[in-house]
């Protein structure tokens, strides 16, 4: 577990002065199908995508776009264009399941621990400091996409 002392001085200053946003009141879905009957999607903010998809951009406020990763993808096909230098990329480079555990999710579905792997998964870029367009535009759009695919559960992974 990282803490504030793991951040650069610049990032620590940012943390202490930044006005974090929340989705309030706390949204809460109390019940749903059991895990063994649920369709599960992955959403990473590791800035991973297929080599054929546009890279994430280093722009002021953060790139609020997302990429759709089909379930047929092997995590090893993915490339990372997350612009932040505040995390160690060696783990994801060696094994993308470290941030996008699609192989592990497939295995759990094969064992019947989860019902189904969603046909689509999503990748965002974290480190978004101006999240209004994420909140109003791309995150709702992404949620609607998952609803269309009848996804019950999303596992979100940072880096």
């Amino acid at each position, binding site marked *: 577990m990282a803490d504030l002392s793991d951040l650069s001085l610049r990032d620590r200053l940012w943390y202490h002065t930044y006005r974090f946003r929340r*989705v309030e009141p706390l949204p809460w879905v109390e019940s749903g199908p059991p895990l063994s009957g649920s369709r599960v999607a992955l959403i990473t903010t590791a800035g991973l995508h297929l080599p054929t998809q546009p890279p994430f951009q280093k722009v002021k406020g953060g790139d609020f776009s997302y990429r759709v990763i089909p379930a047929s993808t092997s995590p090893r096909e993915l490339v990372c264009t997350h612009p932040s230098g505040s995390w160690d*990329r060696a783990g994801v480079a060696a094994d993308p399941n470290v941030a996008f555990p699609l192989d592990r999710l497939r295995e759990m579905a094969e064992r019947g621990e989860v019902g189904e792997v969603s046909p689509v998964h999503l990748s965002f870029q974290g480190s978004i400091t101006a999240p209004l367009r994420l*909140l109003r535009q791309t995150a709702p759009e992404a949620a609607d996409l*998952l609803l269309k695919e009848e996804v019950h559960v999303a*596992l*979100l992974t940072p880096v």
Partner: protein
Amino acid sequence: MGLIAGVLEERGIRSVCLSTFAPIMEQVRPPRWLDVPFPLGYPLGRAGDAELQTRILRSALELLEEAGPGPIRRQFSGEDHKL
């Protein structure tokens, strides 16, 4: 990540986040999250360790079985946290 989780939950999709950095999660407060004892960049732990990755994934998904109200925060209790 936490904001996306909130948007999903608003639309009826249950969500659970992994966290390698508690200070931000405590500020953003998504509905459910699992703290993992690994550095930034390693939310599923060691590269190539499928057994550990599966345990973390399973522990995260098990948070969905806990009743609200949220937020629900738990710690991953693996026995070996070294990369």
